């Protein structure tokens, strides 16, 4: 039972429509899958190590592994998939190709080069032949200092993504000339608003790297202000989570209704939601710094208020998407108050994967609400609770949606039918089960103080005291969950590889997305005024960040009080450690 339209005469895949673009998208997807494969496997190594189930790496190498896991999954996997989906969304919904395919390849290659630079400099942490050090984790807080190649690679990757955004805008401008009076099609609208806040937020991290961290790692400047670069990181660091979430939202809005057999409940509300994300994604980063010294409580409160209102678009999305699914189910014959749920196409891995991802996101929404709360942050800050939270968001809402979407997209861009729907269905279910074990246990252990980012959280002087259960039981659940997730990951990759070699190219679905019950004609034209929303977003950022940044620079100086870089390795630089110990000896 295929949900999408299947009549072979009318059916045109994306490959048939845009063969040149399909090649770039396919390349972006495979870059994304490779990051997922490596990053995911490293996740298993960490889960087994820190729970003391199986330790075969040096504890010092744990942090190299963790850096690679974070960067590959949070940045590389998500953003490569995003550029693929957005390129698909813009070209499909505008029904025209990109303006210049060479430009499209250029940004893709730039992102690949950036990724390789970052990847190799991280690898230097465990391979002696590579003289780089980048055990600075995904957040690269100064004065931990990475090799310049790490920062250069990040810049190339981000600039590549900027050019991708420019590509989508160019395509849209070209379309607008041909269609001056038409509303922006919803998928393009989503891609453009997301790109706009990406430009806004990456300014912070670009500033942090280009003005401070890179010159500092090259020895051009001697010192940095750690609180300033940290604040600039989080200026970007929260918006980036919405950046990688938006393609998943796009899938829920324009694919889930179609897969359910219905239509998107409301186009206007979908536009409102994306406008809200454009406005509010950036001036909230200080909620990652609730426990930082040097930032006044008032600024933290403002960041909290913005963050709490950022719940609104997600809560609206929950309603609109579920209502669209219900519409599909009722059109397929579903009845009753909740009986319609049975009429949904649960045997379709694309649908089920996305629906389960959405369900997990509802749970993630709750732990996110706790994280957004200012003073309750004392309870959960930097604990394993937070790790549990973002394994539900980026690790499931995003990753599972992407994997489910890949079951539809890879046939679209390769012209080859999915190798096994049964394997795909089993895969999305297994991911859901594995993540339930792992994330639930992580959340619980954060509540009794289990720290995140810690190789061996078994301490000499004290024990953790869970109110319910034991540390051993929680660790067992995390390890079990990680194993199940790794198996699910292997099933996904196997299916993708075999699909690429599949000879069967019959009965491919057409390249379509969901229609709307209440269409763009119902939504005020002002929603499409991107200049207006960008201007308001800039004002909100200025309001939210000017005073905190000014006070940080005022108290700590633009370049800090002579703070040099640290590469704190046990074996490579014992003198440094010894010296710092000696200094405090009475």
């Amino acid at each position, binding site marked *: 039972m295929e949900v999408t339209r299947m009549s072979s005469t009318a059916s045109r895949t994306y490959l048939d429509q845009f063969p040149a673009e399909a090649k770039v998208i396919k390349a972006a997807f495979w870059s994304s899958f490779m990051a997922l494969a490596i990053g995911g496997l490293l996740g298993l190594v960490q889960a087994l190590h820190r729970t003391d189930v199986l330790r075969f790496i040096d504890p010092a190498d744990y942090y190299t592994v963790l850096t690679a896991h974070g960067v590959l999954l949070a940045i590389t996997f998500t953003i490569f998939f995003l550029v693929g989906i957005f390129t698909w969304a813009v070209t499909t919904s505008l029904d025209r190709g990109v303006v210049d395919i060479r430009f499209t390849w250029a940004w893709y290659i730039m992102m690949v080069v950036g990724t390789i630079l970052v990847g190799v400099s991280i690898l230097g942490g465990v391979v002696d032949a590579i003289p780089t050090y980048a055990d600075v984790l995904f957040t690269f807080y100064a004065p931990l200092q990475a090799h310049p190649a790490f920062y250069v690679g990040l810049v190339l990757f981000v600039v590549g993504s900027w050019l991708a955004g420019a590509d989508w805008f160019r395509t849209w401008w070209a379309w607008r000339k041909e269609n001056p009076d038409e509303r922006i099609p919803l998928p393009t609208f989503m891609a453009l608003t997301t790109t706009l806040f990406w430009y806004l937020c990456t300014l912070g991290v670009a500033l942090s790297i280009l003005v401070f961290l890179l010159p500092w790692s090259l020895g051009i400047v001697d010192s940095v202000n750690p609180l300033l670069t940290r604040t600039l990181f989080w200026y970007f660091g929260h918006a980036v989570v919405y950046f990688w979430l938006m393609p998943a939202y796009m899938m829920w809005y324009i694919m889930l209704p179609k897969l359910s057999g219905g239509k998107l409940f409301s186009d206007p509300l979908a536009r409102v939601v994306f406008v809200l994300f454009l406005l509010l994604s950036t001036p909230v980063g200080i909620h990652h710094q609730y426990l930082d010294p040097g930032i006044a409580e008032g600024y933290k409160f403002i960041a909290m208020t913005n963050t709490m209102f950022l719940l609104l678009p997600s809560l609206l999305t929950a309603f609109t998407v579920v209502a669209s699914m219900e519409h599909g189910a009722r059109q*397929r014959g579903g009845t009753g108050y909740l009986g319609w749920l049975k009429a949904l196409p649960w045997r379709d891995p694309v649908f089920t994967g996305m629906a389960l991802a959405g369900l997990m996101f509802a749970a993630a929404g709750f732990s996110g*609400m*706790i994280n957004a709360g200012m003073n309750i942050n004392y309870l959960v800050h930097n604990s394993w609770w937070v790790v549990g939270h973002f394994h539900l968001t980026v690790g499931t809402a995003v990753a599972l949606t992407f994997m489910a979407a890949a079951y539809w997209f890879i046939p679209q861009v390769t012209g080859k039918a999915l190798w096994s729907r049964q394997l795909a269905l089993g895969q999305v279910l297994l991911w859901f089960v594995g993540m339930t074990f792992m994330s639930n246990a992580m959340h619980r252990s954060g509540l009794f103080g289990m720290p995140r980012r810690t190789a061996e959280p078994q301490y000499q002087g004290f024990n953790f005291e869970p109110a319910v259960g034991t540390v051993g039981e929680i660790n067992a659940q995390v390890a079990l969950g990680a194993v199940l997730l790794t198996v699910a990951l292997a099933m996904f990759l196997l299916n993708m590889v075999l699909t690429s070699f599949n000879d069967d190219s019959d009965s491919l679905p057409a390249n379509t997305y969901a229609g709307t019950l209440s269409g763009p004609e119902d939504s005020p034209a002002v929603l499409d005024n991107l200049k207006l929303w960008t201007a308001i977003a800039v004002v909100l950022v200025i309001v939210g960040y000017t005073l905190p940044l000014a006070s940080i620079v005022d108290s700590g100086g633009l370049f800090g009080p002579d703070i040099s870089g640290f590469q704190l390795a046990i074996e490579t630089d014992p003198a440094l450690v010894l010296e710092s110990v000696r200094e405090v000896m009475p």
Partner: protein
Amino acid sequence: MASATEQSETDQVREIGHEEYDPIGTAILIGIYFLILVLLWLFMYFVEFLGNGPTVVGALLTVVGLA
């Protein structure tokens, strides 16, 4: 409306337009979600957080304490 939007469904048994559609099931589900959020929030804040032993307090409490 772009041409790529889905126009019809192969296994559709009926067409339901915007005016005749009330997402009652969604309303029920989202109501349940709302209740879960409220109850868990109260539990997390007042039991897990405020019950979690010593907490960082400001000058405000000192004033109250001395008064």
